[in-house]
């Protein structure tokens, strides 16, 4: 009898498929699945967070060590903060805030052109933005917009979404999830990374416009804010971070104008000048 060791049939024990094909399918499938999962989880986490009682949100803000400004507030900054809070107090009665919600406006004397609302009804306005304000009506529109974010619970929704997203990421890579989570939960209490969707922005625009009209009897200043931002962006794009957190679009300007027209609000009227303290804020000399 003759024996032989035949050569193995290479189609049995392993596939002849190109490894990149498998790689593409796997990567596409897994990333697609994670994308859908994070959208779903993010949506539900956001909705859940918005139903969180407000006092918990205040505790959260305290826990993350929210603080504004950079260092010791000087007398001038304190005066500016008082003026800003006075203006906010003028707007708040027109915005139907929940009973236990208190709006606190903070002033940050860095040259960034930005303003944001964060947990616990805290609103921060930067010197860069304040210096470009032509009158009180425009500033009121900015403040009312940020207060509207707080009223609509956008900061805590955004936080909930971010945390859910971080959890999904940590399922694949613990390190990556951790870095996203610590970004979302705010490095050093800034909480500036909370991002709002386009719909949230236009909801806040609409509420802000209604409040400004109620306070000043006309919608003047509501569209100037976009011009102020554009002007600042033209001179020094890097500083105008507001455009990245509040994307500028013609749609938003048009929507504001359209809303004013629908409700029969006056598009403009007598402007209120800024008070002496706020008018005294000027942009820094450019560093050489």
């Amino acid at each position, binding site marked *: 009898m003759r024996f*032989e*060791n035949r050569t193995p049939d290479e189609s049995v024990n392993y596939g002849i498929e190109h*490894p*990149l094909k498998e790689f593409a399918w*796997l990567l596409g499938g897994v990333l697609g699945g994670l994308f859908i999962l994070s959208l779903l989880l993010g949506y539900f986490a956001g909705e859940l967070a918005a139903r969180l009682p407000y006092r918990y949100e205040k505790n959260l803000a305290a826990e993350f060590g929210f603080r504004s400004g950079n260092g010791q507030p000087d007398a001038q900054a304190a005066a500016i903060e008082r003026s800003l809070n006075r203006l906010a107090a003028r707007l708040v009665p027109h915005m139907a805030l929940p009973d236990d919600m208190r709006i606190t406006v903070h002033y940050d004397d860095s040259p960034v052109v930005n303003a944001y609302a964060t947990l616990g009804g805290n609103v921060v306005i930067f010197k860069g933005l304040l210096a470009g304000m032509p009158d009180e009506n425009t500033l009121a529109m900015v403040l009312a917009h940020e207060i509207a974010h707080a009223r609509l619970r956008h900061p805590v929704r955004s936080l909930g979404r971010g945390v859910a997203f971080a959890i999904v990421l940590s399922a694949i890579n613990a390190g990556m999830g951790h870095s996203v989570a610590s970004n979302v939960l705010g490095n050093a209490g800034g909480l500036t990374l909370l991002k709002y969707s386009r719909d949230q922005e236009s909801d806040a625009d609409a509420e802000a416009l209604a409040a400004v009209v109620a306070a000043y009897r006309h919608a003047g200043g509501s569209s100037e804010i976009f011009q102020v931002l554009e002007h600042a962006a033209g001179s020094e794009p890097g500083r105008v971070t507001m455009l990245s957190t509040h994307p500028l679009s013609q749609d938003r300007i048009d929507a504001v104008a359209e809303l004013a027209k629908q409700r029969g609000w006056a598009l403009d009227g007598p402007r209120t000048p800024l008070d002496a303290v706020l008018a005294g804020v000027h942009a820094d000399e450019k560093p050489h």
Partner: protein
Amino acid sequence: MELVFQNLDLFLFLFLLALGFSIGRILELRHYRSIRQREQSLADILAFTNRFPPNPVDRHDVRLVSGAVVISSDYFKQFVAGLRNLVGGRFRGYETLLDRARREAILRMKEDAKRAGYSMIVNVKIENTSISGGRAGTMPSFELLAYGTAIRPARSA
């Protein structure tokens, strides 16, 4: 350039992935060519899993022969296997890796037998040992050992 430094982690990962894939692929194709060629040239050394030779002889010389291979995964295969862990299915990258290792171990065992002047091996077995110990975060690496009893008709009367 600034973009590269800011996302160094990501670029390093992509670089390692591309390196793992390209070098791993070249080596694998080259290895398969070598395996097929040596399987032809060692076809006269017969290996059986039976404990006794198919044509029993009265007196024969015996000798233990063995062939060992240590294999390790590459970055690309490991990444794909990581994705596989989520969805299940055939670990194709590891299938070729282990197939190469088994065939290489048998070839080395046959070469061992041939050098000693034997042309038949019975009772062939394959053992494997995990070197990485399956700990998380370590590159999977294994030793595959093929061994058997080489026999030939007794030369000394």
